[in-house]
């Protein structure tokens, strides 16, 4: 199973763009990359998922290089409410264990 590595914590200021990179050197051909966000006292919430190149939705963008050994979650113009833990995980299409790494604790300051 692919294992992920992320920075344990990051600091940012309101209005800045934040990029969180996740390494997954052993990603398999059928694995997808998914990011979740978790606020204190809540369950994780799906943000974005991708397989290759770039994916964008109303919340974030996900950049995946050609070798797929890493991915970068980009949060544009963060606000205080984006303070949360962000998890990257790789998982098989149509099944397999969904294993979370340790996550990145993002702190956004005024």
């Amino acid at each position, binding site marked *: 199973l692919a294992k992920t590595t992320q920075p344990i914590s990051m600091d940012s200021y309101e209005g800045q763009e934040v990029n969180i990179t996740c390494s997954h050197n052993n990603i398999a051909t059928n*694995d*997808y990359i*998914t990011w*979740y966000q978790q606020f204190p*006292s*809540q*369950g*994780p*919430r*799906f943000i974005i*998922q991708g*397989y290759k190149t770039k994916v964008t939705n109303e919340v974030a963008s996900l950049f995946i290089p050609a070798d797929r050994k890493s991915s970068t979650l980009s949060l544009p113009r963060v606000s205080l409410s984006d303070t949360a*833990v962000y*998890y990257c995980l790789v*998982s*098989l*299409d*149509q*099944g*397999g*264990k*969904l*294993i*979370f790494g*340790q*996550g990145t*604790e993002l702190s956004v300051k005024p």
Partner: protein
Amino acid sequence: DTAVSQTPKYLVTQMGNDKSIKCEQNLGHDTMYWYKQDSKKFLKIMFSYNNKELIINETVPNRFSPKSPDKAHLNLHINSLELGDSAVYFCASSQRRDTGANVLTFGAGSRLTVL
């Protein structure tokens, strides 16, 4: 309407007791999960059920027993509680997608404190 609901939200109990946490999802999903999150924020999968059938059973003590009466419910029963069982337990559900990996919808969590 809450998509994945867990009860109770908080549970404080003594060592040696038996307790249950209930989970219900109204999303029509066919797969449900239990995850354990410890104080270091690691989320560890414990069990997964697909249409009432156990499909993932991680290395979890036998004191933990999941039960799925139907595909909308997955309960977790814990016998002989120990101090190390203190954690937040999350229930989640997912549905098979046409493309891509399963996306989990989580409940708000049940914080278990064993004294």
